């Protein structure tokens, strides 16, 4: 009987696990293997070169630049996205009047939720094309003609190496805020309203309720969001590839690790070297996720 139950349960899990092994585990294992070879990517023949790729990588100034850009995204993207999403979610939930019916969100919050969530429905290249058009570098560009009219002057946006990376970061934020807004909103509606009402009766202001009640009770959700956004910041490949000059320019100012991997693997014919970059990125992501989960651990509050 015991033997039979193994087989019964295993039969359910075999197919999903097989798919996972073939399409997730096996590519990972292969990438680790190829990172130790001089594979060109388009030849069945290659040599084992040990750690040579990693040694070259340590002196690759372009890759170092790319890591730097990913780190800027890693700091800016989660901070700003979570801040904005929290503020908006809080306003939608408890931003309205407190009256006899209790604490309410702002009027029309369903509409706002939908509006904020909309970018999430669009695919990344569509978002990239839209924003590249909005931020056209000529004075007659969409955003430039508006800022010029209201006296704010013009900017070359993606053609200016000093701000191009921040333009890409802004689009990443714009595309993510909606999702985290809805996520936080759902988590907030899970907090019993009477807690807020009790606080208000005790004389707590909006800020105090936010910092003393909402934030601690949302901590788990925020922590998860932070890790997801960090992983997004370490990627950013698709936006950079579609929006920027080069891509990765001007003057490598928006070059990210994902782009370095694609360039080396598919254009320079250095798939082995690109795999080594992929391995570095893999461990970087793993370490950052682990550190973040550790550093932000708090006692869980049950309610």
């Amino acid at each position, binding site marked *: *009987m*015991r033997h*039979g*139950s*193994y087989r*019964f*349960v*295993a039969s359910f*899990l*075999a197919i999903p*696990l*097989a798919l996972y*092994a*073939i399409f997730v585990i*096996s*590519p990972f294992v*292969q990438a680790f*293997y*190829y990172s130790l070879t*001089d*594979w*060109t*990517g*388009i*030849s*069945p*023949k*290659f040599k084992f070169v040990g750690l040579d790729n990693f040694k070259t990588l340590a002196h690759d100034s*372009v890759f170092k630049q790319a890591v730097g850009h990913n780190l800027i995204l890693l700091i800016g993207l989660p901070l700003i996205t979570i801040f904005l999403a929290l503020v908006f979610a809080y306003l939608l939930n408890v931003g309205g009047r407190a009256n006899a019916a209790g604490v309410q969100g702002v009027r029309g919050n369903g509409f706002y939720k939908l509006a904020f969530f909309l970018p999430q429905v669009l695919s990344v290249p569509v978002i990239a094309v839209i924003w590249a058009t909005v931020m*056209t*570098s*000529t*004075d*007659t*560009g969409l955003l*430039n003609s508006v800022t010029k009219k209201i006296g704010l002057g013009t900017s*070359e*946006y*993606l*053609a200016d*190496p000093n701000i191009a990376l921040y333009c890409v970061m802004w689009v990443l934020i714009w595309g993510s805020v909606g999702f985290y807004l809805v996520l936080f909103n759902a988590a907030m509606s899970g907090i019993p309203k009477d807690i807020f009402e009790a606080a208000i009766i005790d004389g707590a202001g909006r800020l105090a309720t936010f910092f003393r009640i909402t934030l601690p009770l949302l901590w788990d959700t925020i922590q998860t969001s932070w890790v997801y956004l960090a992983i997004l910041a370490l990627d950013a490949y698709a936006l950079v590839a579609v929006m*920027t*000059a*080069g891509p*990765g*320019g*001007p*003057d*490598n100012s928006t070059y990210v690790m994902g782009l370095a991997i694609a*360039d080396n693997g*598919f*254009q*320079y*014919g*250095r798939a082995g070297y690109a795999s080594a970059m992929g391995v570095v990125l893999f461990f970087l992501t793993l370490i950052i996720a682990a550190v973040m989960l550790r550093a932000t651990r708090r006692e869980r509050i049950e309610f």
Partner: protein
Amino acid sequence: MTTPDNLSRRLFLQHAAVGTLLATGGSALLSACASGGSDDENTGGGGADKTAENPFGVKESDPLDVVIFKGGYGDDYAKAHEELYKKKFPGTTVKHAGITDITPQLQPRFNGGNPPDVIDNSGASALPSSTLATSGQLADLTQLFDAPSIDDANKKVSDTIEPITLEAAQLGGKPLLLNYVLTVYAIWYNKKLFDEKGWAPAKTWTEFLALCEEIKKAGIAPLAHQGKHPYYIAQVVMDMAVKHGGHDVIKAIDELEPNAWKHPSIKLAAEALLELKGKGYIMQGTEGLDHIQSQTAWNQGKAAFIPSGSWLENEQKPVAPKDFLTTAAYTPLLDGAKLPVDCTQIAAGEPFIVPEKAKNKAGGLEFLRIMLSKEAAGKFTELTGSPTVVKGAGEGLKLSPGAASSGALLASGGENNWTTYYAAWYSTMDKPIRSVFGELAAARITSDEFMNRAQKIADDTAKDPKTKKQTRS
């Protein structure tokens, strides 16, 4: 059935995972890697009697597998060529694929050892041909160029095509690529606009500056370029540099010679571009525009000149006004230039390859031989409006203003026309150099910084043990 107590969740998952690995076959999993591994020699087709009519001994029954990059030229011309092939070998079947994502689709086939018989290896995701060449995956085209021509069996194929084709075919000392389309690079203007205003393209730098001033006063930007792809503006700088210093300037660059990028002619040309930017002769914001945006602005009359290749007219057909006369002009001569003004950069492009391990390699070579007949080449020009490397195949065809003017520039340049290969030969050098040209065009660096940075990239490429240095013939 009850769940047995001693079957803990963790233990169970472990067992299931191991079971899965076994079920999918651990060894199969490891051998089914992305790099494949099958390296079986195959015969490469052929085997029939080799005659003047059938110099590669194609067996009529062997099927032919053709993959065409379906870009600006479409793939209708290839279907026409396949009809010619089928007419010659009625017993065969031709498998045709017109695609844009060459590398994603063909990479696994190369790695698996079953590549197609003919590939038009072009477009943004073309296979890196230098890498294919180093690993011996491309068929030697010597036998094609030495074979008798279809139009005249007394002539070799190599005598019926533009000489640049033979040089452009070289990769690692062997002819491996058949570049089929002849491209003329120029700066382009709207002849209708210029005639109305009484302007004409300038021959010297002083005249060019005066012309720019006049155009600027008329409220038009003298020059636009495709800033997101700085390779277009690079074409202007290099054309002025080569005309000033002669062909040796570009040959030294292509051969990765020390200090090739620090040639005085390159400095002059770089400073000329900086002068244009400094005097406000370059369209504001063009640094951030892609080719579609900038070329459309040029079609709308916002800019007078734009650099591009002879595909421009065809590319802009959907947006150009009906009476727009796309016309090719030469770049102006810097003082003390060695070459005359009426020559330009040309290139044999759209490389066709035959994989060494193709099942029907003989058929692939024969397909290329058919493409190099006047009938097939004329068909190409008729369908795409672009000239081919086949001599005299465009005779008698009615040409558009763009094609006629670039044809005239090609003819007037003659032996003085020049070409370059470094971007194709050294794939790791191409993109970084473009980026430096972008910085120069935006005037964020000086001409000296430009030369130093470009030279550093060239030196790094030369030092890299993985680089296979090439020499110009």
